[in-house]
């Protein structure tokens, strides 16, 4: 039934919140990353039925820590169980739900202290976050509108549509200092104002970016609705990658159910405002996420970026003023509207209020989505929340900003994660990906890898990106193969600078970050490659020789077992030896040695 006003809406919220009265709710995550959630849910349900326990087993969206999945939560008790298997169902029903006791193996082990925690509020990597955009991550079923409404979603939109003018909405967003989370950090309020003030009969509002769609699609739709109301758009699109089947299905369902309930579509919540949202699908190429490429893709054209004269806010989709926001930005909008700009500014920095969802990965103990205030240092992220570098290795570098981000080193660990400070060090906020590298990595090889991939992702429209990235990758490849010369280093730098300066879109402008930032920080390693023909990280095979340090070797034979070429010899408890004639420097042995005995010479 359509909700025809604010009152009907708040009654619906109460009904949704009350629907599980008298039952214990158990949520099993069904995120895209972890498998087995369905079987766990079924097992808990049937066990409870047999035991006569009244449960409401509901799905949950991704918590953002898929390596711990499937996760089962008991929200009423604040419990959070990780790595649950169907066989755990009896214990969960009797012990966990019945008695509030959590077996150790289901509690979350803190990566840094090895202590186990079962209360969500105590789990360090969760408790240490400030989840605003991810407020509903793992707490609602993204496919269930009632869950969303129960959590307060669409409340801010109802407030905006019924009590605020579009100008007031824009003023609130401006006052909050909200910046776009899609990469460039442009002021969302300014963008909305430009769109509202642009001349044109009709406008469009577009949501871009897939991650939040899988976690909380209604929050994104609510933000999009508020954006549309603010700029005066009556048609909108949610742009998702066609290959992320889960996000596509969730958004499709979310649009349908929200429209059926009168939260989208004609005369929303009984007001005069109408806003129709459609789903638009795009390719999985990196450049397909660039804003002008997104708009071209929605128009049915080849998704190539265009030069931003005029800006999309003035002439965007089908030539009409268009506001395009990242889905994380949009998920924050309702929070700003509901709680007010002052509240929003309480976290983050003065230049960048609020939080940013970061995706921590690579050689770190606890990876996943981390939402932290802007200004949080890289050290806090990697060593605090992420529990430090995995295994016994040392931190060497972190690539900050995604595939076109920059590489920061140990000396940069105290850099606040924020647009300005990161840019000053050659990195970006970008996609929010932070990839940690340990001392067994080679910055030259990392630069080669990303430059090579981005060269292939170049749409081919502009010369510096299309041709320049190719030659950067070529030079880097030669260096990692041991064919580089000292003259390559200044050439790399000069070419990378021009590619960054003269490319058309953000892809070409940011792709050289990895080259420039590694040259800045790891010049000695570049020199070792081109002058001494050595790869200090032990990664570039043509330049690597491994040796076993007989003082450290315990003769455990672990390395022997994994060596694919049989290059390692040595009896048990006796120091081992690598035959340099046979060794291909694949590095398998090094990953297995517990005593760090395998060294690069």
């Amino acid at each position, binding site marked *: 039934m359509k909700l025809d006003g604010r009152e009907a809406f708040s009654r619906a919220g109460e009904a949704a919140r009350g629907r599980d009265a008298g039952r214990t709710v158990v949520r099993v995550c069904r995120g895209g990353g972890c498998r087995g959630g369905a079987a766990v849910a079924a097992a808990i349900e049937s066990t409870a039925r047999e035991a006569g326990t009244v449960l409401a087993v509901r799905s949950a969206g991704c918590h953002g820590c898929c390596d711990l999945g499937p996760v089962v939560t008991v929200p009423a008790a604040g419990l959070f169980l990780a790595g649950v298997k169907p066989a755990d169902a009896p214990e969960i029903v009797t012990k966990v739900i019945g008695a509030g006791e959590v077996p150790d193996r289901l509690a979350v082990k803190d990566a840094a202290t090895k202590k186990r925690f079962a209360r969500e509020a105590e789990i360090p990597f969760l408790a240490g976050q400030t989840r605003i955009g991810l407020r509903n991550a793992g707490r609602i079923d993204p496919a269930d509108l009632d869950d969303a409404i129960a959590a307060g979603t669409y409340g801010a939109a109802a407030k905006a549509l019924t009590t605020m003018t579009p100008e007031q909405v824009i003023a609130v967003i401006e006052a909050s200092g909200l910046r776009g989370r899609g990469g460039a950090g442009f002021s969302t309020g300014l963008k909305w104002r430009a769109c509202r003030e642009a001349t044109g009969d009709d406008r469009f509002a577009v949501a871009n970016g897939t991650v939040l769609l899988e976690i909380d699609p209604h929050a994104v739709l609510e933000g999009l609705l508020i954006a549309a109301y603010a700029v005066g758009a009556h048609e909108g699109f949610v742009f998702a990658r066609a290959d992320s089947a889960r996000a596509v299905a969730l958004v499709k369902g979310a649009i349908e159910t929200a429209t059926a309930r009168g939260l989208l579509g004609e005369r929303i919540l009984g007001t005069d405002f109408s806003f129709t949202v459609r789903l638009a699908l795009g390719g999985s*190429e990196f450049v397909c996420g660039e804003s002008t490429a997104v708009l071209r893709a929605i128009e049915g054209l*080849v998704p190539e970026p*265009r*030069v931003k*004269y005029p800006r999309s806010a003035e002439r965007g989709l089908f030539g009409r003023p268009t506001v395009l926001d990242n889905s994380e930005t949009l998920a924050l909008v309702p929070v700003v509207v509901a709680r007010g700009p002052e509240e929003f500014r309480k976290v983050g920095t003065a230049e960048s209020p609020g939080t940013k969802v970061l995706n921590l990965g690579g050689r770190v103990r606890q990876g996943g989505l981390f939402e932290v205030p802007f200004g949080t240092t890289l050290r806090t992220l990697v060593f605090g929340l992420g529990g430090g570098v995995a295994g016994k290795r040392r931190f060497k570098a972190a690539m900050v900003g995604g595939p076109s981000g920059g590489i920061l080193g140990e000396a940069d660990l105290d850099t606040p994660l924020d647009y300005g400070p990161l840019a000053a060090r050659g990195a970006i906020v970008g996609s929010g990906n932070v990839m940690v590298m340990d001392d067994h990595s080679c910055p030259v090889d990392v630069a080669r890898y990303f430059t090579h991939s981005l*060269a*292939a*992702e*170049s*749409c*081919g*429209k*502009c*010369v*510096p990106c*299309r*041709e*320049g*990235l*190719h*030659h950067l990758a*070529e030079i880097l490849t030669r260096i990692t193969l041991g064919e580089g010369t000292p003259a390559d280093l200044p*050439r790399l730098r*000069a*070419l990378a600078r*021009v590619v960054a*300066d*003269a*490319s*058309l879109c953000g892809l070409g402008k940011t792709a050289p970050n990895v080259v420039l930032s590694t040259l800045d920080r790891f010049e000695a390693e570049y020199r070792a490659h081109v002058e001494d023909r050595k790869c200090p990280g032990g990664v570039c095979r043509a330049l690597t020789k491994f040796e076993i340090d007989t003082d450290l070797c315990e003769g455990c034979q672990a390395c022997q077992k994994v060596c694919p070429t049989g290059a390692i010899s040595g009896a048990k408890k006796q120091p081992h030896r690598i035959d340099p004639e046979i060794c291909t420097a694949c590095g398998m042995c090094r990953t297995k040695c517990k005593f760090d005995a395998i060294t690069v010479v």
Partner: protein
Amino acid sequence: MIAMDIDGRRVVTEEGRTLLDAAREAGIDIPTLCHHEALEPFGGCRLCVVEAAPADSRGPAELVISCLAPARDGLVVRTASERVKEARRTVLDLLLARCPTSDVIRRLAAEHGVPRTSFPESTDGSKCILCMLCERVCAKIGAHAIGGAGKSRGKRIAAPFDLAAEDCIGCLACARICPTGHIGYEETDDERKIWGRTFRMVKCEVTGRPLMTEEQRSFEAKRAGLPEDWFTKCPESKRRETAETIAKAFEEVR
């Protein structure tokens, strides 16, 4: 009216003009490769880069492409600063590596101080710099017969599915607009071959000179709202015919 400082000169232009327009009006030359006034600006070759900053700005100037950047009052534009020249040289260096056999690129590169490329030369013999002028002119005419296929360095100009270009009208606009002469075609008085198609030529009824392809005639006639038999003679025959008609008319009046 908009007044700017381009290379230290005061240049006045109108709203809606680009920096390139304004510079050219003032006789300041900026090299371009993917720009053509018949077509929407594209912004692909990046040869036309200039530095621009508002007069009152204290930050670093922006590197913008003049073929698209709108003229704005008070803008300070530098078309030949070291930064601009470096970007241009690099673009030409890269294009020269891509198309070492193109005389046009060789000459342009040499003019800008790049006598030879500093990158490994491509050996495929292609002269295509992917300026997309051909695709764009074909679309502008309304034929939409050819376009870019693929991405990154593997992108190339092709007919759909690499088959004979079904929608091609054989007008040669692509071959003529191509700055490097990459697009080949063959021509006799009777036939024209391009994009895997062979076209029959319409010939002047008087002199027998080839005029255009039959497909082009139908296409142009339809677009211009003229009958097909409007396109039957070469200009010279038509002039003679007109002159004779006029002479005869005068004769009759007298």
